[in-house]
């Protein structure tokens, strides 16, 4: 018996250790992101004090407000303060309003969360479906038409997709409202009509990438030796697709799904601008323009955390569905 025969102990202890390792990596990534975000935003020319006081500022007022905001302390002290705040769940106070960022962004976070969640709930199954269909009939009219459509959308900036949807569905047909000024007093989900166009835009911009990736993954599986052997062993096509192709791409697809969530979160910036949607994407643009670095930092860290957790989940799906990843070797 050779050493290769050693059986990997696919017990829960091993899985737990692998998850812990990935959590540690995730935390490390967030640390890197925090350094990047903090010191990039620290390099800002001009500052919030000017922005706050506008053209009528006097040097004395500027100095006072800078010292009030702690902007005159050494960067490293500010960083350590900020990080220890983050660890204890304190995102800091907005430089512009003095309000805690968590309070300031609460409604926006729930709005964007609703937007991204609904979009993901449509995009993920849709992308997998279209990708599988295209892979299964590689070279067929379905494949070519799906991939041409996806190519076409990929060639358009997100805002163009949004503007076209507005022009057609709000302007031409008057089916839906052209803008989405969600009422902060109500849950985003209760204002369905205002979500229709933003969600449709997000789905359209995020689906092509997912579709293409799933198509490649499934096509590679279908071209694999194990599928050929299954065919030569008389296994039914439907079963081949399910057990031999789709099941094996669950892990990598979950990774691609993570990338899709990344796309969706990035897409909120342009989409929220098109629809005047009160979410964190538009808050980010405003905070960048207004030099409210505390808000910029909080949003960047929040988005990064969501994505780290998303990729952690994707890894988890990979570990649970691909026995090879559980192997000790």
């Amino acid at each position, binding site marked *: 018996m050779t050493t290769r025969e050693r059986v990997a102990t696919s017990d829960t202890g091993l899985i737990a250790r692998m998850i812990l390792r990935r959590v540690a*990596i995730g935390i*490390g*990534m*967030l640390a*890197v*992101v925090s350094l*990047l*975000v903090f010191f*990039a*935003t*620290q*390099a*800002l*020319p*001009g500052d919030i004090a000017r922005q706050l006081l506008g053209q009528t500022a006097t040097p004395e007022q500027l100095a006072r407000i800078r010292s009030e905001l702690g902007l005159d302390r050494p960067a490293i002290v500010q960083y350590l303060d900020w990080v220890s705040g983050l660890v204890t769940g304190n995102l800091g106070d907005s430089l512009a309003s003095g309000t805690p960022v968590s309070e300031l962004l609460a409604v926006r976070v729930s709005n964007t969360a609703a937007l991204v969640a609904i979009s993901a709930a449509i995009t993920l199954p849709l992308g997998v479906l279209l990708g599988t269909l295209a892979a299964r009939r590689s070279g067929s009219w379905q494949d070519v038409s799906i991939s041409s459509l996806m*190519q*076409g959308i*990929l*060639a*358009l*900036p*997100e*805002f*163009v997709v949004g*503007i076209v949807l507005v*022009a057609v569905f709000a*302007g031409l047909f008057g089916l839906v409202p052209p803008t989405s000024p969600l009422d902060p007093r109500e849950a985003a989900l209760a204002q369905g009509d205002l979500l229709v166009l933003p969600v449709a835009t997000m789905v359209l911009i995020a689906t092509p990438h997912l579709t293409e990736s799933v198509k490649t993954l499934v096509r590679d599986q279908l071209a694999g030796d194990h599928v050929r052997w299954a065919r030569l062993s008389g296994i039914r096509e439907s079963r081949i697709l399910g057990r031999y192709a789709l099941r094996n791409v669950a892990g990598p697809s979950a990774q691609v799904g993570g990338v899709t969530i*990344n*796309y969706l*979160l*990035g897409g909120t*910036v*342009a989409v929220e*601008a098109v629809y005047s949607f009160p979410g964190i994407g538009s808050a*980010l*643009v405003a905070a*960048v*323009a207004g*030099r409210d*670095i505390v808000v*910029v930092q909080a*949003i*960047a860290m929040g*988005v*990064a955390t969501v*994505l*780290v957790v998303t*990729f952690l989940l994707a890894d988890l799906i990979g570990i649970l569905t691909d026995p090879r990843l559980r192997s000790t070797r």
Partner: protein
Amino acid sequence: MTSLDVPDITTPIHDRHTGSLLRAMLVDPRAWAGAVAVVAVVVVTLLGPLIAPTPPGEFVARAYAAPAPGLPLGADNLGRDVLSRVLVGGGAFLVEGLIAAALGIGVGVVLGMLIGISGRRTAGFLLFLSDSVMVIPQILLVLIILAAFGANPVTLTVSVALAQIAYTARVVNAATQGVVTEDYFRAARASGAGRAGLLFREVLPNIIGVVLVEFGVRLSVCFVALASLSYLGFSSGAVSWGAMIHENQGGITLQPLAVFAPVIMIAVFLLGMNLVRDALARAVAGRSAR
């Protein structure tokens, strides 16, 4: 000296280095369609300034005047001829995107190859860093960099370029791994090739297809990013398609052509680029399959 029979090659042995990729693409109708689109846009860009009916700054009509005889694409937000501005504005935009993509690709390729040939620990650490950067959505990364350095043509181009590096490095690293584990790479090392020799004589020629495909991808991403940033209000100022989007988005319901004319040019260019890129990717895949 040896009596062994060598299978005779009857045809003359001459290869063209880059021939295989090019030949594969020449017979691909989608590559042709893409190339035609790209060339058309480039030709418009080059000839545009010569054939523009009016100087791009001249006021010829009311702001957002609708298309009319002599004003085929209508007027922009200041009553200037949209057609003329589209004809003149391609150069700046294409150059910005090209520079951004080339810059991102250049740094990313070198970085990716370096990661690929460095030791496990160094490579692991660098990959961890690039993964960390990639956790941030690209537009957010660009906005943070823009916030740090302000928005002007240089920072705009550079920040978009910077945002590409991690992605390119990752792809190039993966391709480099494929070369590093090949014996010809070991053979070169054994014959005393230096680091630069390894990178540029052994690795680069063998991943050039991947690099070209990646360049296509990055070019699309950079153009889309620049257009989107223009829309968000971060624009470079000069007469450029990106700036046109920015200037005229206020009148999009009134005079959609002022925004869509440059967008269509960008989209046609990108679509063409994507078709060429995909054909190239198929050709590269076809070659490595042999």
